[in-house]
């Protein structure tokens, strides 16, 4: 029996077919585990009218992130946990454009965001969370008291594509993450229809990863690209 080899040669090939109007998941947290090379390729590719699902909507630094797509006018709507700056003086491109009405947004508490992504992968139609009860964000949502506690109903958040940054992969797409790089990557990899992965470390042969130490099964992964020498690295390159 064979297992499929999903390795693509370049980031550009791996994202070439993403059409205008797609919903795209963009993981990363505090700058770690961000699929910067794939995002740069989507920026070059030029898909527009995107809905992006991400913890935040980009920073003010020079690094490529989902904010790069926002600034380029490729994003119609952000679904994220931050739509205002933590410090009023730090105005990211997204914040400026959101304030000017150039991009739409849906604000979701971070744990609700994570679980909505997970249930999209899990075939669950909705879940009741205690988060946001008694706040503005719960207004208009269905409330329910279960065992004496009040919950609001939240729905799944699926996507057409997930852009993933992993530490290691095998050619079938089994993935491993390193430390805080994991964050939203596994659940987004599982929730999207097409999952595209950039890999920091090696893409190894099938069978080289310990089955007990696979963080995301290759059944969820469609395309794999090794980050090239001249790609976008965070700090020092791995192993160097």
């Amino acid at each position, binding site marked *: 029996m*064979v*297992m499929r080899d999903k390795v693509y040669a370049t980031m550009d090939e791996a994202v070439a077919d993403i059409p205008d109007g797609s919903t795209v998941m963009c993981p990363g947290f505090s700058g770690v585990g961000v699929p910067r090379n794939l995002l740069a390729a989507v920026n070059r590719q030029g898909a527009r009218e995107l809905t992006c699902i991400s913890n935040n909507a980009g920073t003010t630094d020079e690094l490529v992130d989902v904010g790069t797509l926002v600034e380029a006018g490729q994003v119609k709507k952000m679904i994220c946990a931050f739509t205002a700056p933590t410090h009023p003086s730090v105005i990211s491109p997204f914040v400026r454009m959101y304030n000017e009405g150039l991009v739409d947004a849906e604000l979701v508490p971070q744990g609700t965001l994570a679980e909505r992504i997970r249930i999209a992968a*899990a*075939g669950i139609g909705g879940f009741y969370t205690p988060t946001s009860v008694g706040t503005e964000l719960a207004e208009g949502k269905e409330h329910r008291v279960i065992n004496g506690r009040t919950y609001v109903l939240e729905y799944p958040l699926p996507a057409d594509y997930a852009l993933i940054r992993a530490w290691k992969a095998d050619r079938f797409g089994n993935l491993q993450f390193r430390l805080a790089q994991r964050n939203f990557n596994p659940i987004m990899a*599982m929730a999207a229809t097409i999952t595209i992965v950039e890999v920091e470390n090696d893409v190894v042969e099938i*069978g080289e990863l310990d089955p007990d130490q696979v963080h995301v099964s290759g*059944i969820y992964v469609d395309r794999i690209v090794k980050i090239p020498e001249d790609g976008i690295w965070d700090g020092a390159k791995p192993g160097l």
Partner: protein
Amino acid sequence: MTGKAKLTRQAMCDRLAMEFQDGWIVNLGVGMPTLCSNYVDESRSIINHSENGVIGYGPLAAEGEEDRHLVNAGGQHVTSQPGMGIVHHADSFMIIRGGMIDVTVMGAYEVAENGDFANWRIPTRKGGGIGGAMDLAACAKRVFIAMEHNTREGAPRLLRRCSLPVTAPGVVKMLVTDLGLFQIAASGFELLEHAPGWSPQEIQEQTEATVKVSPGLREFRFRG
């Protein structure tokens, strides 16, 4: 009942396995369906998934070479295979409910022409055995059934409506019995392939529901 030969369980399961397409993720139920894994087309990538969170396991382990920590959903010792991965039970059913299983093959007591099937409970006995069957039946992309055409007593099992409590309504797409291969379409059972020597008329006589004959009816295909 005629004395003519019926299909063996292995032939039935080999035939279903011929339908597995390259890249499919397959969940084989306890019992007869596990025989589907004996037919392996080396050119196709077929990923075995088991409810206990084993993704991509290999063939049954030879006696004396079992790994005591590696079993499939039927408790059979299976072998490790390159590319395998392990998840816990909740994540394993994310795969199932999330619609990642291309086909599940199960046994059944009864199948109805509307795609209902029953395999978890006999009302005259207390309790039931569901396991992962209801999740798989409700959520897999395709449900295939492998079962004998009639009960041991000769009663029909391909029915107009199930008499037993159903496992899931309207989900069965393909069915193999010891008399042939059927698909279930909007119009009900359609005979695609008949066991050698069995005419459509003879198969209809063993069946409560109406069996429509496929325009492309042919003799049953064996592992070649």
